[in-house]
């Protein structure tokens, strides 16, 4: 008897959680001014997607989704590295990590 059976957790619940996580991440990306927070929100959104993939993988009994998730995590690591690099460069340039300080591309 698995835990899932106890709570009778189905794909819908995973998807709902994933949507919640993605929504929180999206909100963070849009609303937060701190670049670190934004990076973390992005991680959150990626993981929401991963959760989605794993959920569908479980529902369909297909491991392909989980394999894809592993790849996504790897890419997320790379993304974090690049993002932190940008963050560092920005901080060196402006002594701040607030994104609203970087608006040179305003038209």
């Amino acid at each position, binding site marked *: 008897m698995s835990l899932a059976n106890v709570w009778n957790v189905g794909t819908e619940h995973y998807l709902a959680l994933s949507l919640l996580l993605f929504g929180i991440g999206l909100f963070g990306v849009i609303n937060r001014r701190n670049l670190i927070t934004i990076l973390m929100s992005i991680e959150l959104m990626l993981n929401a997607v991963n959760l989605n993939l794993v959920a569908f993988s479980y529902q369909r009994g297909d491991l392909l989704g989980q394999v894809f998730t592993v790849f996504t995590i790897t890419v997320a690591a790379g993304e974090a590295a690049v993002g932190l690099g940008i963050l560092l460069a920005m901080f060196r340039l402006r002594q701040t990590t607030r994104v609203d300080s*970087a608006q040179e*591309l305003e*038209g």
Partner: protein
Amino acid sequence: MRDLLWLVPLLPLLGVLANGLLVGRRASEKTVAWIACGSSGAAAVLALGVIADYLRSMSPRPFDLHLWDWMSPGALPTGGGGGGPVNLSIGFGLLLDPLSVVMLFVVTFVGFWIHLYSVGYMAGEPGFRRYFTYLNLFLVAMLVLVLGDGYASMFLGWEGVGLCSYLLIGFYFDRESAADAGRKAFIVNRIGDFALLAGLFALAGRFGTLQFAEIGSQIAASAEALRAPYVLGLSFAGFVALCLFLGATGKSAQIPLYIWLPDAMAGPTPVSALIHAATMVTAGVYLVVRSNAIFQLAPGISALVAWVGAATALVAAGFALVQTDLKKVLAYSTISQLGYMFLAAGLGAYAAAIFHLATHAFFKALLFLAAGAVIHALGGEQDLRRMGGLWTRLPRTARAFGIGALAIAGILPFAGFWSKDAILSAAAASGSSGHWILYAIGLTTAGLTAFYMFRAFALAFLGSFRGDPKSEHHLHEAPWTMALPLFVLAVGAVAAGWLGIPEALGGENRFGRFLEPVVVKFSGRAPAEHSGLSQAAEIGGMALALALAVAAILLALRIYRAGPERGAAIARRFPRLHSVLANKAWVDEIYDATIVRGTWGLSRLAAKFDAGAIDRGLVEGAGRLTVFGAWISGLFDRHVVDGLVNFSAWLLDRFSRSLRRVQTGAVSNYAFALALSAFVLVCLYAVWR
């Protein structure tokens, strides 16, 4: 020998080439003189040989040396008088007949002696070589004129002598008066030559040829047709005769075109002797006599020729009475004597005209050369009032001038007497109306001629010297090159008339007989040549003319022996007549006021038309039109084309100004837009799946 006729004009031409092109700028005067005199002398000797050969052969038939075809048939279609096209055929050749023999002799003989005279006269002048080149060229042209076997070759020479005349009148081209005189001669001659050309075109159109022989035979064949009305109320013969005569008035200085000859005295004196007295100016007389068949068919024009000749003779003699310039006296005298020749030619006494032409060539050349010697001795002085008393100082020149003056005055044994008498008796004997008036004019002119010639003689050679005392010491006789021609021509002036002693005085009139074949005889008409006067009347006429001449000479000597004062006193008693004569009847001024100023006015009008209508109207109008068109085109370009371009730019600018607000630069906005777009797309996908 006569086959060598072509060499006669060629020799002086070689002289022209040698002097003009070969010897170069640094050639000595001696070289130039030898070439010029040698070539003209050789031509003269050769001409004598040719003439002797021609005279020895018994037949008086013309000898036509055809050299080449100038325009061959078919080359130039012309509208024939009969309506159909005819082919123009013109040859270039030399003709030897009694008329051209006389002219050939006069031209080469007088021409050579004047060449020789020029050597002395022109010595030391700058332009010595140029002078002799022109003089030889003149000889070539004059020989082509008198020897040409058709009107075309004659016209070639006619224009050639005109050119040389222009060049030699303007020889001292650094003097404005000489340059003006050359131009005047050239332009006045153009007027006559225009008429001459019109006549030649008429002949060429009618007969399809310009050869004397062919035209002569065609005229003989169609004499009556040529008298039918043609244009302007004239017959064809009358029209052509009028044209030829107008050409002759230009070249031979007759009224109304005589005005250039007095001015032509600006040239060197030997040129005046050769071109403007002895040879070129007689070309008009030659032309009329050469065309005597046409003139005989046009009695009205012939009468005109006679009257114009008589009027010119009288008027020019009147002008000569009061001239104070020695050369001008001789110039008017030449015009007057040429008038005599036309008087004879117009009356049909063609032989008499040529006879006077030949004798005149001798004594007028002599007079000019003697005058040249006087001027030379006086260092360029030409004013009769500043001469005088030269008889003892320049004895040879004075005697030569005296012989020439006696000859032109018509004193018995001298040349002028015989030829003048031939003309006067022709005037008396001619049957034309008013011939007694012509005779009276001729007789009066003879008296005037004797008077003005001895007036000049007395003023120059008698009395006491009135010139600059300093120049009196420089007086010297001319060198032998100038004296010898004077002597030879003086012999000619005495003896040339003996060839034509009329029958009335027991002579044979050999000259008239010799020229008889030249004058065309139409059947049924009495030749005018044979005088209808009785022997007594003819001798009476001679005696009258002689008496008049002697009286005039004595009167002139009486008045002017001591100087010009008594003449001036007489002039003061007739102020009006004197002023008319001294001002040459204001003919120059009248021509200047009417024709010259008229031409100027017309030219100015044409210039105004050119500047106003053509330049300003057409050219500038086209320019303005183009500018206006360009302005319109510019407007369209600026407003329509540029407007479209600018409008699209403006539109883009407007849009961009609104769109730029989207570009906030804040990453979060972009992220929001991204998310929103994704959401919308997904929604759309969900709805329209």
